[in-house]
């Protein structure tokens, strides 16, 4: 059994890393990053099978693809604190000559990143390709991916969703961050997608909800349940119900912090709510 308390402490540090990265350069995307902090920590610290070090091919290990690349602060924090690159490098986020670009990329050779993302809607196709290669290679490890809910408005997703079911790509677990927010407002207001579950199911996916998407125990349990559903002829989708900005009270339940950095005072408030557990960079 995982030590949920340890994982939650890890999340507290990741939240600090997120707001500190964004604050330092007065740019970046804290809202979605905070909402997915528990998911990333669960994935990298508990659920995914990972090899030591990093190689692009990732044979013999699980892979993860971030499709909604703008939540790079949480990705970078969890990668650094999972040993992919020095934690101090978080200091370079979005700065000139950095490997930590505004949106994740392979271009500067940052370990842990396997594809550039930022222009939305492309990650599921990439994950499917990697999953098909795993099958060709006789590699029975899994491919995980994360997508924003607003991002589902990009049509390429539905090409990929259709392909995955038709071709029984059952070694993939695609998670949708259902925070209900996008830049211009709530997803319901901007472009109401109706039932995301019904859509995935209609396309032939096995769908499960993690209703408490910011509850570590619920996430670990949900990911393990998803894992048990792989290899059964259907791609697996997790609908992760999260709260945007989770863990920083004034950033929660709003799209206002989608792409906005806290000022000095707001940073102090955010940090006060999230104790330093692993040591600040």
């Amino acid at each position: 059994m995982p030590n949920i308390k340890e994982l939650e402490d890890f999340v507290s540090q990741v939240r600090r890393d997120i707001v500190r990265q964004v604050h330092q350069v007065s740019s970046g995307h804290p809202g979605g990053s905070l909402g997915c902090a528990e998911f990333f920590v669960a994935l990298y610290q508990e659920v995914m099978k990972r090899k030591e070090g990093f190689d692009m091919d990732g044979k013999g290990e699980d892979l993860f693809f971030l499709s909604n690349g703008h939540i790079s602060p949480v990705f970078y924090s969890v990668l650094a604190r999972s040993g992919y690159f020095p934690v101090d490098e978080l200091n370079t986020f979005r700065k000139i000559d950095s490997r930590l670009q505004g949106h994740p990329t392979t271009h500067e050779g940052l370990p842990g990143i396997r594809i550039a993302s930022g222009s939305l809607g492309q990650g599921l196709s990439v994950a499917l390709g990697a999953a098909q290669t795993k099958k060709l290679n006789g590699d029975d490890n899994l491919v995980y991916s994360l997508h924003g809910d607003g991002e589902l408005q990009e049509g390429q997703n539905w090409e990929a969703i259709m392909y995955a079911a038709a071709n029984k790509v059952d070694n993939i677990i695609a998670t949708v961050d259902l925070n209900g927010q996008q830049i211009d407002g709530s997803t319901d207001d901007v472009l109401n997608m109706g039932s995301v579950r019904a859509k995935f199911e209609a396309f032939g996916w096995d769908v499960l909800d993690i209703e408490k998407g910011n509850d570590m125990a619920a996430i670990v349990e949900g990911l393990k349940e998803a894992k048990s559903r792989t290899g059964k002829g259907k791609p697996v989708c997790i609908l992760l119900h999260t709260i945007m900005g989770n863990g920083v009270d004034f950033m929660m339940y709003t799209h206002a912090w989608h792409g906005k950095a806290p000022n000095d005072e707001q940073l102090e408030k955010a940090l006060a709510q999230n104790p330093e557990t692993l040591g600040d960079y």
Partner: protein
Amino acid sequence: MKKFTNSGNIDTRSGFGAGMDELGKTHEDVVALCADLTGSLKLNDFEKNHPERFFQTGIAEANMIGMAAGMTIGGKIPYATTFANFATGRVYDQIRQSVAYSGKNVKICASHAGLTLGEDGATHQILEDLGLMKMLPGMTVINPCDFNQTKAATIAIADYDGPVYLRFGRPSVPNFTEKDGKFEIGKALHLVDGSDVTIIATGHLVWHALEAAEQLEEKGISAEVINIHTIKPLDEEAILNSVKKTRCVVTCEEHNYLGGLGESVAGVLAKNDPVYQEFIATNDTFGESGTPAELMEKYGLNTKSIVEAVNRVLAKK
């Protein structure tokens, strides 16, 4: 002047198919993806002989490009195939982010490029693809001229690690380059020696350039013919060496003059050795329905127009 023999008209896309069939046997990591155009891309043999390595994506090119990028992770060499229009313009952002910027070893293989697609008309006749692709950092852009060269290029790019755009076409055209000849990415082929004018041609226009050189020879004009199959990286040395001698250039391509081979050549000349240049290319226009020969005539992309362009550039020299 050196003569080239047409061993029989055949489409360049069949050269692609033949190359894929061979790669299927020699390169176990080569996989093919196709967006509902298997027959048009001449991939039937590859599909039949290697069904486990053939991925039918349906009419969903964006997903095809993304999947191809993902398939490189784990060591596959994906050949993503469809018509040139759908392989470039339709999926530019997917190629830009998931393939080029991500540095993925994807081969984008595009048939039915240019006007010679014919009767289907302008919706399918892309004349902007070379420009779109050559502007992407790190993208290698290849436009072979006949069956033999297309087959050789198809095979050669498997051993090159990086993104490639390989462009070929639909109609049957003369097959005149060496059978199973060596294909060197980025290396121009010096076809005919000459001293009065340099004709630089790519793709279907290479045969027309050779015909033009013959006609010019009868009139006492000595034309040098260079086949640039790799638009990027461009063999600048071959261009500059020839121009040093001839002092004028005609570039020939089945593409818009904006963004094409001619513009790349002009850039090299402007920087190093400015000389007069004429462009055999479409003039910032869309195509239309018609037979390939009618279209090439109407839009000035044939032997006759190359001869005229040579006369124009010689008059300026």
